[in-house]
């Protein structure tokens, strides 16, 4: 870690959800990638559903 904390980074750090980090650190590297890909699949599905809804709008 850097010796002298950067005040900008420290400000951003306050908003980091450490519960997500702690959960990820319990996983293996492979499980972290599988989780990330599952998130991506969900995001793709949300985008598809959004497109479909927009297309159906009168």
């Amino acid at each position, binding site marked *: *870690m*850097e010796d002298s904390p*950067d005040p*900008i*980074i*420290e400000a*951003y*750090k306050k*908003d*980091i*959800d*450490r519960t*997500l*980090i*702690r959960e*990820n*650190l319990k*996983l293996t*590297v*492979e499980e*972290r*990638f599988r989780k*990330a*890909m599952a*998130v*991506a*699949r969900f*995001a*793709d599905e949300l985008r598809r559903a959004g497109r479909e809804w927009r297309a159906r709008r009168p």
Partner: protein
Amino acid sequence: MTNFEALLAALARNEVAFIVVGGAAAIAHGSARYTYDLDIVYERTALNMERLVSALAPYEPYLRGAPPGLPFFWDVRTLARGLNFTLVTSLGDIDLLGEIAGGGGYHDLLPNAVALEIFGSPCFALSISQLIRAKRAAGRPKDFEAIAELEAIQEERGE
């Protein structure tokens, strides 16, 4: 969606010398931020570029965001003429980097990189310290949150 597993397997199968950098390396270290592509720093030797070309050729690499129909040929000559390539493939997006700010090229990064096995494929990834240095050197406002998260990971690990 980028198929990290298949891309890493293709690189490993062809014995490409590379280091995972960027968001994918951050995921390996525990980041909860999703990345849409696989970023790698590749060794710029003739043999390794041949291997890289062979590894990706079956997946139809093309310049990401470029209009279709450009005379882009995925071969060693193209790779040797450039340095960094942002590509789309049938397995997803991959960025091939000859070097990165704050880190240099493959041989500069390798001594401090971490050896991982991801989906059964051996590979190297930047260490958290290297990732932080690279993101600081990039100096983009969008990286501030990523740096903050990486430092938080270090703190959670007690480093």
